[in-house]
């Protein structure tokens, strides 16, 4: 059975801190790994990773995939209260089907 596991499940930090969120996977047909941010409603797309070792960056967020270790990390530097959300990791298996992890609930305190 395809499985995606995220850690930690919950994280509370102070504004300005740097955080690292983890995602590991065991799937039979890996095609890509995606990160989404979910606030009250729709998950919003952050990154799609297909190649190992190539960092993707958008502002204070960055992510990298390690296919040897079957894992990915999402880094957020200089966190702000607006970064508070649930961060979802998903692995594409087969034809665009996504298997999601449970999510990491990130809380940034001022």
């Amino acid at each position, binding site marked *: 059975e395809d499985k*995606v596991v995220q850690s930690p499940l919950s994280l509370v930090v102070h504004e300005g801190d740097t955080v690292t969120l983890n995602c590991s996977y065991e799937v039979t047909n890996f095609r890509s790994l*995606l990160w*989404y941010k979910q606030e009250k*409603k*729709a*998950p*919003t*797309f952050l990154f*799609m990773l297909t190649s190992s070792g190539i960092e993707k960056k958008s502002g204070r967020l960055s992510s990298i995939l390690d296919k040897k270790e079957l894992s990915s990390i999402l880094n957020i530097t200089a966190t702000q209260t607006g970064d508070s959300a649930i961060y*979802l990791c*998903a692995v594409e298996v*087969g*034809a*665009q*089907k*996504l*298997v*999601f*992890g*449970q*999510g990491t609930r990130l809380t940034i305190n001022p």
Partner: protein
Amino acid sequence: GAGVSQSPRYKVAKRGQDVALRCDPISGHVSLFWYQQALGQGPEFLTYFQNEAQLDKSGLPSDRFFAERPEGSVSTLKIQRTQQEDSAVYLCASSLPRTSGSYEQYFGPGTRLTVT
């Protein structure tokens, strides 16, 4: 441009009632997906359409769940004889085809279904 829209945003159904949830994908997106998200969990795949063809329905939990996309745009997820365990947020997503090279899925705001 407009994103993925879903209606209704909230639905309360009595156990045993039938419900229909609607999804309007982003214009031009040929791929459409339905997910179920229980409280505190990540979304779980239900079914996938490419245009009007339902290519994967392996995630539908029972034969009470049925999805259609007859003209290759709007989709409806129907749940017959609802049960309490059907209570969840139902998310719809759409994307360009995988062959486009830029095929990340864009999600709608979801329909929160509560079965009493």
